[in-house]
């Protein structure tokens, strides 16, 4: 007999007993006292604030040079939301995604907590005294050596007095040049504008134009003051049947290009001959003929002729140039002459109304000269603030190598970026939301920047540090009387402190910023320069509309925001034309290597109709080797393949080289949120032509007749989506008590019908609404490399974690309650022009919702005021509702992104300080979706009750509608004629997505209006 044990050591019954009692104990502990929390009061209550009630502060956004006015909502000392300042002349209440994400710069978990000094190869934390002492010593040493003229200060785009202040400081110290380096600024256009119009950045009035022609000017992507341009462009589109036709000339269809009615896909580098030919055709004189230009550009002569014909006969029009080739200045010059010739200066190009002080910015040429000086060892000391030249310049300029030869480098960076990492001392600046400053959006008008909260960390405003250094320096002390930059700004203000304090609340004052000592933008070279290299393709590099030239990459909202064109997030990609891809055997996601004389980059391919077949395109913004956990190690930096070629004003030529393109080893699935780029006849995003609209043919029929619409009689609402509330009994006219669903119920809830209209004629697909939704509703980002769960946890060497950036998105687990769908129409053969339609898709708050009837626990149901409600604490996560939803707008919280103890936690400290206290942070296993910003509805109701009145028409709106720089979204009570939305739903362009499903949606879309060519 074998000796196998017959008696287990622990009997099964005993094991179960132990298990049972342990479970009971755990339950008892779990149910007893909750975690003890503390309530920490103030020492002294601050004036003018009430705990739990927001205080709004007007200030300025500094994410790009446009300097939009923002209002920061501050709750209990923490900024929780940024919205546009309605009174600001630039953005008039709207704000782009990048501006809104400034909050994630403020609360970035990788911000420097305090000063850092270099010990050997590392930066280590230090006190301000130690760090400043080192700087003072070095300044003294430079003085002794007599090399002060070689000291350089590199700052970012400076659209305020700070630039002039630094000029003064450098001069007082006896130091050399101050370079404000903005890689995104279109210096060529600014220089030409200065010369031709007398203003570097004239205001552009799209709404007044009868025809808009853009030669590479991506005015919706970040070229110039994109929010104000978008407001104006949307106003132009809102003229509907008589809106201006928009023609885009360029080798790549950017977001701006996708909004055009016609795309003239010219060969890269041929823009100049097109512009010259158009000018020659308009005013005579020398220059190529249209036929010659058309041949050189590979486009049809008739298309160019049509533009010229309209330019000649229809006034005013608006012609813009913004190409990235070495000839950018010449294209801009020709275009300026076209505008002058056809009388656009004044009506649509308004030199008197533009922002002031954007001029004295330098590009790669000046920075390359600095790098050469540094490499030659003639720069003893370098200050860097805001800019990140080590990342933002092509490698061939050897800026990083030059840094090694600079005696002492001081960074004022908030973040551990590539440049700061190479510095000897880091004196972290306050974030812009913690700083004082100003800007001049229109000549004579001052935008005021104030701190909206106390500094989060042990940081100091760079300007205050400079003043501090000046005070301790015998040579400089007498030059600066102000003890802080706040005093400096106030002292400059007309009327002094009191007038300043009065203007501060509105964020707008009168006055002018300090002018820079640097000269106005000017042409440095007037000759043409060819594209270099001898490859088969042209490489087009362009700033990302989301990440800019790279500064946005450390903000998870922006990483998670799909690129408006490609719908790709957390990744770099190479745009290849489908016909080219077919020729080279490239499938989507295949790695592609682009080689130029300057270097090469490799990234997965994205097949894109909107790129010239002879070109490939890569966006800037990714490929960081530092800059914090969200930016580092994602994608590639396209600058690695660019040489030092600049345009005539010294900005890096983004399209400068021919390249060879080859298929590389490997494949990466594209992290895209797109299901299909085509509608497959589903009629989701609809459009009419201007002619159809004018003829009254836009109306979609059969809105009014619905069978089985039981609750139609007693509930007010939109003409179609009348709430079929409460799933049965209460919706039945024969039922007795309808409770709160009865229109005459004392609660009055059923008298409202919250609804939304989205005007696709206005929507440009910019995605500002998406970020607004993330900010307002505590939506987690899920794409960071540590958040990815492997689908096969036991087969993965990495113990169940998938560290591919965007791994969760690849599985369709993104959480965007509001997404922008982008559909292409036509051009299937890859040769013809195609049309693009953008459609913001969110919960449609169906009156007859398929999700509601399948929920086993009533976690989703229809509220009497028309909301499709999701009750998180009822939800048990069956996901039946998501299966039932035809719009796919319900998002399941797979991994507990809101739970601090999880690796997937989306709000690592201090990002959690941004969370909106009015919205639940959802836990694992809960379905979530757009709530129509129910917290804002309740807030408005609370405020109205507090003031003893009804909610006033259009008193509040949702976060997406508030942010929209196209003013495409209107929200309100469709049951009341007083609200704008109830007029909007009567528009003849109104339709419901998937109307045939009888979902009776509360979101009504207004069809896009197309302006095909031909006579008008």
């Amino acid at each position, binding site marked *: 007999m074998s000796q196998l044990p017959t008696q287990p050591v622990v009997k099964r019954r005993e094991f179960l007993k132990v298990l049972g009692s342990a479970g009971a104990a755990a339950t008892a502990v779990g149910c007893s*006292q909750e975690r003890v*929390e503390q*309530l920490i009061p103030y020492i*002294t209550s601050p004036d003018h604030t009430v705990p739990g*009630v927001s205080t709004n502060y007007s200030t300025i956004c500094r994410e790009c040079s446009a300097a939009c006015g923002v209002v920061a909502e501050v709750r209990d000392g923490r900024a929780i939301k940024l919205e546009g300042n309605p009174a600001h002349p630039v953005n008039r209440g709207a704000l782009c995604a990048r501006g809104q994400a400034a909050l994630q710069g403020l609360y970035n978990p990788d911000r420097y907590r305090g000063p850092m000094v270099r010990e050997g190869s590392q930066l280590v934390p230090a006190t301000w005294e130690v760090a400043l002492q080192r700087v003072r010593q070095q300044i003294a040493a430079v003085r002794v050596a007599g090399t002060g003229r070689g000291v350089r200060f590199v700052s970012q785009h400076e659209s305020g007095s700070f630039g002039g202040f630094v000029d003064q400081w450098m001069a007082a110290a006896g130091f050399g040049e101050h370079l404000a380096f903005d890689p995104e600024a279109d210096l060529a256009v600014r220089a030409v504008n200065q010369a031709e119009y007398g203003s570097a950045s004239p205001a552009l009035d799209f709404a007044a134009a009868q025809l808009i022609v853009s030669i590479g000017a991506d005015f919706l992507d970040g070229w110039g003051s994109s929010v104000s341009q978008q407001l104006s462009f949307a106003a132009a589109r809102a003229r509907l049947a008589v809106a201006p036709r928009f023609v885009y000339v360029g080798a790549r269809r950017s977001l701006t290009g996708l909004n055009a009615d016609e795309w003239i896909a010219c060969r890269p580098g041929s823009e100049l001959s097109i512009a010259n030919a158009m000018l020659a055709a308009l005013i005579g004189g020398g220059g190529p003929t249209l036929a010659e230009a058309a041949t050189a550009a590979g486009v049809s002569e008739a298309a160019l002729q049509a533009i010229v014909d309209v330019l000649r006969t229809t006034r005013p029009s608006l012609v813009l140039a913004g190409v990235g080739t070495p000839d950018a200045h010449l294209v801009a010059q020709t275009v300026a002459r076209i505008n002058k010739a056809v009388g656009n200066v004044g009506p649509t190009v308004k030199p008197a109304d533009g922002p002031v002080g954007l001029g004295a910015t330098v590009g790669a040429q000046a920075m390359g000269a600095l790098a050469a000086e540094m490499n030659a060892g003639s720069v003893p000391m370098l200050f860097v603030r805001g800019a990140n030249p080590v990342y933002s310049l092509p490698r061939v300029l050897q800026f990083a190598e030059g840094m090694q030869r600079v005696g002492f480098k001081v960074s004022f960076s908030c973040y551990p970026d590539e440049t700061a990492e190479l510095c000897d001392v880091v004196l972290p600046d306050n974030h812009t939301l913690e700083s004082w400053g100003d800007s001049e959006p229109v000549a004579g008008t001052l935008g005021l920047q104030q701190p909206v909260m106390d500094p989060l960390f042990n940081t100091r405003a760079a300007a205050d540090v400079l003043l501090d250094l000046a005070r301790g320096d015998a040579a400089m002390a007498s030059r600066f009387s102000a003890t802080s930059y706040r005093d400096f700004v106030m002292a400059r203000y007309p009327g002094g402190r009191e007038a300043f304090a009065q203007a501060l609340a509105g964020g707008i004052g009168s006055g002018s910023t300090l002018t820079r000592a640097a000269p106005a933008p000017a042409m440095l070279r007037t000759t043409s320069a060819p594209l270099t290299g001898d490859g088969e393709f042209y490489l087009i590099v362009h700033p990302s509309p989301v990440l800019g030239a790279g500064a946005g990459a450390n903000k998870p909202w922006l990483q998670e925001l799909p690129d408006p064109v490609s719908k790709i997030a957390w990744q770099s990609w190479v745009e290849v034309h489908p016909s080219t891809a077919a020729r080279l055997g490239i499938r989507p996601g295949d790695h592609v290597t682009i080689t130029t004389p300057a270097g090469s980059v490799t990234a997965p391919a994205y097949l894109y109709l909107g790129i010239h077949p002879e070109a490939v395109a890569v966006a800037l913004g990714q490929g960081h080797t530092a800059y914090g956990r969200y930016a580092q190690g994602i994608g590639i930096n396209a600058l690695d393949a660019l040489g030092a070629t600049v345009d005539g004003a010294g900005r890096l030529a983004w399209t400068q080289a021919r390249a060879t393109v080859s298929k590389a080893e490997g494949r990466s699935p594209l992290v895209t949120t797109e299901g299909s780029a085509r509608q497959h006849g589903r009629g989701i995003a609809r459009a009419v032509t201007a002619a159809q609209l004018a003829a009254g043919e836009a109306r979609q029929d059969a809105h009014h007749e619905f069978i089985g619409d039981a609750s139609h009689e007693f509930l007010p609402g939109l003409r179609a989506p009348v709430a079929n509330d409460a799933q049965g009994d209460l919706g039945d006219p024969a039922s007795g008590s309808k409770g*709160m669903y009865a229109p005459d119920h004392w609660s009055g809830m059923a008298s409202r019908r919250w609804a939304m209209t989205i005007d696709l004629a206005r929507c440009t697909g910019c995605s500002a609404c998406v970020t607004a939704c993330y900010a307002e509703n505590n939506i987690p980002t899920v794409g960071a490399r540590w958040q990815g769960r492997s689908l096969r946890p036991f087969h993965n060497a990495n113990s169940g974690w998938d560290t591919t950036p965007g791994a969760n998105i690849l599985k369709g687990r993104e959480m965007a309650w509001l997404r922008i769908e982008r559909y292409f129409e036509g051009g299937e053969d890859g040769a013809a022009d195609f049309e693009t339609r953008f459609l913001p898709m969110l919960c449609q708050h169906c009156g007859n919702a398929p999700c509601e009837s399948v929920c086993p626990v009533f976690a989703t149901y229809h509220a009497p005021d028309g909301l499709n409600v999701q009750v998180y604490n009822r939800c048990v996560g069956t996901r039946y509702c998501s299966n039932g939803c035809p719009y796919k707008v319900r998002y399941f919280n797979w991994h507990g992104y809101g739970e601090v103890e999880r690796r997937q936690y989306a709000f690592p400290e201090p990002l959690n300080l941004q969370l909106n206290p009015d919205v639940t942070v959802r836990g694992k296993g809960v379905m979530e979706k757009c709530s129509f910003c129910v917290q804002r509805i*309740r807030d408005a109701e*609370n405020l109205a009750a507090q003031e003893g009145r009804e909610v006033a028409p259009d008193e509040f709106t949702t976060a997406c509608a508030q942010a929209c720089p196209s003013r495409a979204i209107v929200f309100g009570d469709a049951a009341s004629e007083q609200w704008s939305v109830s007029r909007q739903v009567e528009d003849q362009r109104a339709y419901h997505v998937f109307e045939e499903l009888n979902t009776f949606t509360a979101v009504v879309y207004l069809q896009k209006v197309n302006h095909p060519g031909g006579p008008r």
Partner: protein
Amino acid sequence: MSGRRSWVLVSGFLAITIAALGLSAYSGASSSQGFAPPQPVDFPHPRHVQQLGMNCLYCHYAANKSPDPGLPAVGTCMGCHNIIPPTRSEIEGFAPRNAAAIAQLLLFAPQGTPAEWQPIPWVRIHKLPEYVHFPHMRHVNAGVTCQTCHGPVQEMQRVYQYASLNMGWCVNCHVKGYKLADGLLAAGDTAGAQAAANVEPKKARYDCAVCHY
């Protein structure tokens, strides 16, 4: 042990567990009703409210204008206690006093040295789950007395959680309505309660999304 007997035991155990869970849920055992933690300062509500006649809103100053009622800043306490020390000899008919609570307060806020004051880490008693939004001001402005939900705080030497704060407890009031007379009675205003005897109960919306979002 026979197979049948073990099955009886298992199902019996299950039945008892389910019954216990059900009972505990029904009785509100999952609530922290009655929670009365010791506080860093033994603040005597009765002395301040009943003897000195202070209004709740003097300290909980945001209760009528914010979702959060607000806690008194240390400066609010010291507005009086800068001149009211822990010990006092007999004056004008008042017995001498040795108030330990004031001594505790002064540990956080030494008299006359505001720069050294520290916030008092009060232990939170009333806490709704984070998926519930309770706007204090709507209730206070509707005439709901503080004592309706918080109980006779004016008599509590140490504050405890009076009501269960469970959802059923909330909804009961929203559906049936708040009787002003009951609220005034709870606040100790007998005369007011009598005068308000015929006031209609005030109802409130009870849709889920009024509180849960």
